[in-house]
């Protein structure tokens, strides 16, 4: 009888001592937002979404992430991805995102861009561990992003501003001149 009581007591103590692992996955920040290809018809918005796993022992996998993208108050679209990136215990993860932009939406009536855009990313990420336990992380990030012209775009713009012609345009003109000259000779 005593033995049974001791076993029950020990098992009670063991259960009481067994701590369930507590923790959560937190949104840290959004890094390196870039707007590219604005000189073309379609551009892209790129960014890195940072998370931190505060669980001491449990690794999680990113199940899915969706982000509503707004630029200067205009609804640009929804980024969605089913990913398998892993966030290890007590570590950070940066999730790269890229979304195609319809540049016409960002232009004003004259077809020009402002020097800076206010980008709002409003999203939800769902992480899952091996025991199928899910962690839902909601996040919102607002940032003013400057658009920097690439060297190629700058050259193009400068030429257009000066009224100068590009190489291909010069070649075309030369061809036209030659044709006209041959016609005159005939």
């Amino acid at each position, binding site marked *: 009888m005593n033995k049974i009581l001791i076993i029950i007591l020990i098992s009670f103590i063991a259960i009481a001592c067994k701590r369930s692992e507590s923790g959560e996955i937190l949104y840290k920040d959004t890094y390196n937002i870039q707007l590219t290809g604005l000189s073309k018809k379609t551009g892209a918005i790129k960014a890195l979404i940072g998370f931190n796993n505060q669980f001491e022992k449990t690794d999680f996998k990113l199940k899915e992430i969706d982000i509503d993208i707004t630029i200067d108050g205009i609804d640009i679209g*929804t*980024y969605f991805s089913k990913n398998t990136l892993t966030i290890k215990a007590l570590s950070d993860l940066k999730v790269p995102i890229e979304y195609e932009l319809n540049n016409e939406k960002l232009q004003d009536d004259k077809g020009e861009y402002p020097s800076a855009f206010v980008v709002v990313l409003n999203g939800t990420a769902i992480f899952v561990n091996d025991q199928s336990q899910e962690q839902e992380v909601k996040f919102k990030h607002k940032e003013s992003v400057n658009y920097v012209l690439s060297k190629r775009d700058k050259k193009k713009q400068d030429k257009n501003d000066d009224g100068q012609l590009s190489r291909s345009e010069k070649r075309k003109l030369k061809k036209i001149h030659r044709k006209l000259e041959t016609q005159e000779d005939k």
Partner: protein
Amino acid sequence: MAQLRYISVLLVISLLFSSYAEAPSTEPYFVKMKGFKVVTFNAKRIELSSIAVFFNTYNHKAKLKEVNIDVYLENKYLGKVNNLEDVSIPKSSAFDIPLILNLDPPGPAITNSLWQGTKLLTGQKVKIRYEGYIKLKVLAFVPITVKIKDEMSYSIF
């Protein structure tokens, strides 16, 4: 005879073309609804708008060919959305389709859902169900049907 030959050549080319195109492991699918708005809700006109988010699993751009979605307010049929918007559908990416339910005049929908409508306008939550499908065309394939079924409680405040 010449016509038959022409048709068979075309068939062989299209078969070759379709065999070269990569088919994704999963078909395009519905992701979520967002941005529900009550534009107008009165005896003369009902206008509700929302955005349906889908995912194009194909590694090719797609075209929206058909929208056919029934809208229910608290399990009562309100109307059908079949507006075909000019939507760009990039490859391997999510895309938004604006859904606009425009009943002008509302007809039986208003008598069916007047009480639910007043609940909506006073800021109470009401159940709205979207059920139907869209059709996408990728390359020269037969249009792909993507089903949508979503029920959410919405309020305008």
